[in-house]
């Protein structure tokens, strides 16, 4: 085990790690998550995108229109400024990229393991945070709202689709999220590959 952890990574895998680091850079420019809303009176659909540092509508005015719909049921207005996580998320991503470069310069397997742990922990924390955020938006309603349906909450799904009144809400990772999952897969594959070389007799 120790032999594996201290093993110097093969040249090809080293380049793969660098690739993962570079791939992470693209997450600054791609949405991580996408929530779409379908309702009869929105034949063209409504949606919002969660980026590393902001929340936007799928098209220019979607967020404003989602907020307009939400105000009937007393949901808080969704604006980037109300999500403090978005302030430090870019640094977390920066840390992961930094890790990839360190691993490239100092190519040892244990650094990859650390990287995987980082991504998994951050991923779990991130998903929990996202769920908590959705929970608050869906449950923490203004009691003075024009439409109050007793017992009704409007928490969007974490992953997958859900019906809420006449709206179908679907929540799925977008390109940035897919890249993060993909990177995790690549890192696990690299470890598997390195392990194979340690234990398989030459």
């Amino acid at each position, binding site marked *: 085990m120790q032999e594996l952890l201290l093993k110097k990574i093969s040249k090809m895998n080293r380049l793969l790690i660098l690739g993962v680091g570079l791939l992470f850079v693209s997450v600054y420019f791609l949405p991580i998550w996408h929530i779409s809303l379908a309702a009869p009176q929105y034949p*063209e659909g409504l949606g919002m995108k969660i980026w590393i540092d902001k929340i936007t509508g799928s098209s220019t*005015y979607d967020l*404003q*229109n989602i907020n*307009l719909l939400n105000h*009937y049921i007393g949901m808080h207005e969704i604006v980037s400024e109300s999500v403090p996580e978005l302030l430090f998320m870019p640094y977390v991503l920066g840390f992961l990229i930094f890790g990839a470069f360190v691993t490239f310069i100092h190519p040892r397997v244990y650094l990859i393991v650390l990287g995987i742990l980082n991504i998994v922990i951050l991923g779990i924390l991130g998903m929990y945070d996202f769920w908590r955020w959705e929970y608050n938006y869906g449950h923490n309603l203004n009691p003075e709202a*024009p439409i109050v349906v007793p017992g009704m909450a409007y928490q969007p799904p974490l992953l997958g689709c859900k019906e809420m009144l006449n709206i179908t809400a679907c929540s799925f990772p977008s390109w940035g999220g897919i890249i993060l999952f993909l990177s995790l897969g690549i890192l696990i594959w690299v470890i598997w590959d390195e392990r194979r070389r340690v234990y398989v007799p030459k």
Partner: protein
Amino acid sequence: MVLISLGYGCKGGAATAALASDAAKRVYVAPGEKDEVYAFLSGGFSGQMSVYGIPSTRLFKIIPVFSVFPENGYGYDEETKNMLRTTHGYVPWDDSHHIEASMTDGKQDGRWLFLNANNTPRLARIDLRSFETKEIIEIPNSAGNHASPFATENTEYLMAATRFSVPIPQASVPIENFSKGDFKGTVTMVKVDPKSGRLSLELQILVPGFDYDLSHCGKGKSHDWCFFTSYNSEQAYKMIEVGASKNDKDYILAFNWVRAKQCLDQGKASNFGGEYYRNYLPENQPAISEKLSGVKMLQPKDCPGVMYYMPTPKSPHGTDVDPTGEYIVGGGKLATVIPVHSFSKLMDVKDKPEHRSGMIMDIPILKYESTLAGEVKKPCLGPLHTEFDGKGYAYTSCFVSSEVVKWELGTWEVEQHLPAYYSVGHLSIVGGSSKDPYGKYLIALNKITKDRYLPVGMELPQSAQLYDISGGKAELLSDFPTVGEPHYSQMIPAKLLMDKAAKIYPLEENKHPYAIKNEKDARVVREGNTVRVYMTQIRSHFKPDTIEVRSGDTVFFHVTNLEQDFDIPHGFAVGGAPEMPNLLIMPGQTRTFKWKAPKPGIYPFYCTDFCSALHQEMQQYIRVLP
């Protein structure tokens, strides 16, 4: 001929029934599906324009142009009331006849439509993104702007000629002087800015005092020319129906507008009087109304080669140029033939003295046979106007015998008689006046309905008919009632317009001087006896929502709709406001409602357009203090 056409009329009902089930399928547009073509019909005496889907013939919209419009307050509110300003004062509606579509290289480009006002001579530009009237320019030195607005191949200019000749400049002279040459007509070249579409008067040409009826401009080889029909070359001024029908031939005026522009540039036109308004509605701002004066006037004698008269039988109405630009088809209302002039022949003979039969006001009159390409013999009674299918066939409307005749260009043979119910005026083929007709559909714009619909009192619905002309034989598909008199139409393939139709006014681009873009800026500002309410609307409330003013104050409600969602306009109305109808305010738009605060009391105001689940709650109060 009368018997033949009556025969057709009688058989019409039976023929329609046999066709019905098949035709119904061909005009059926299933729920949620879209029509293939936009039809824009002028409203005749309603001064409006209406938008239909073809083949379903469903009415989509009425665009107010030269008319006030209760539905949205056009012509009443502070933003649009100046659009209807003229040198004759505020004209609440007019008589609108001809729609022209903007073209690039002779093909429809889907940017603008143009419409004339006949009674108070004006031209309007309608934007095809917002489907709204954006500009109206008055034509001075004109009486009855009928032969208008016909565009040159690249929409360089719109032509406008007078229907009623009058003394120019205006003067109170004995009416008998009409026949002594004291009355004149004008041809006006209205320049269209190629980027913005803005209209300006470039030049007028003083022409003999006939009645100028219709016009069409050339294409391809005849690019430089426009053709105007004229009647009453007799210059009769009493019992005109008889007096003006005497001559065997009246004229088509061939006008070389490129030459006219050359003469203008060479300084051959002189300064002339004439006052006119130009009213322009910038995007989301109040209309800018300018009173301008003076035009450049050209006399044909100072610009040889600018105009020629082509004799054309008996009071011609239509003068229609085929897609190749070679044939100019005349529609002699009282003629027994459809005469077709050849542009090549015109070019050949125009300056050869042996082909001339005289001069009027230094405009050479050519001999009828010299420019004639051919005649369609005994086509129908009262041929008026011709459109082309781009496949070598022409369709001419015949008012008196109530039919459309299909005939072939070149052979001049009639191919088919299509009955029309009844008394067809203009007709329209999709792209049929352009270089590149899309063919397929033809509508006949009829004048009389009689037994076609359930009777609704003495004024019956105005009516049009849809034909399929895609096959060898044209077929009647349906009848449909229309708004106002369907005078003329342009039909445009849907694919050219539907994707670029505007959905909202982007709030960040709203440059209205009284716009506010945030509820936080909503406020009431008093300036002496004037009160300005900076108001916002969003589903489902106003801000400010309760207001106090004093009796006798002039209150301006500057209302901005903050929505940025397609199809979410809000309305605005104040209880009992006597001078204003309700306003309809588009997403991102600012409009102003002027109100004289009446006697003390409480006055409600509310949203008139059902906007949301809480629309009925979109209401508030103004308190008027003593």
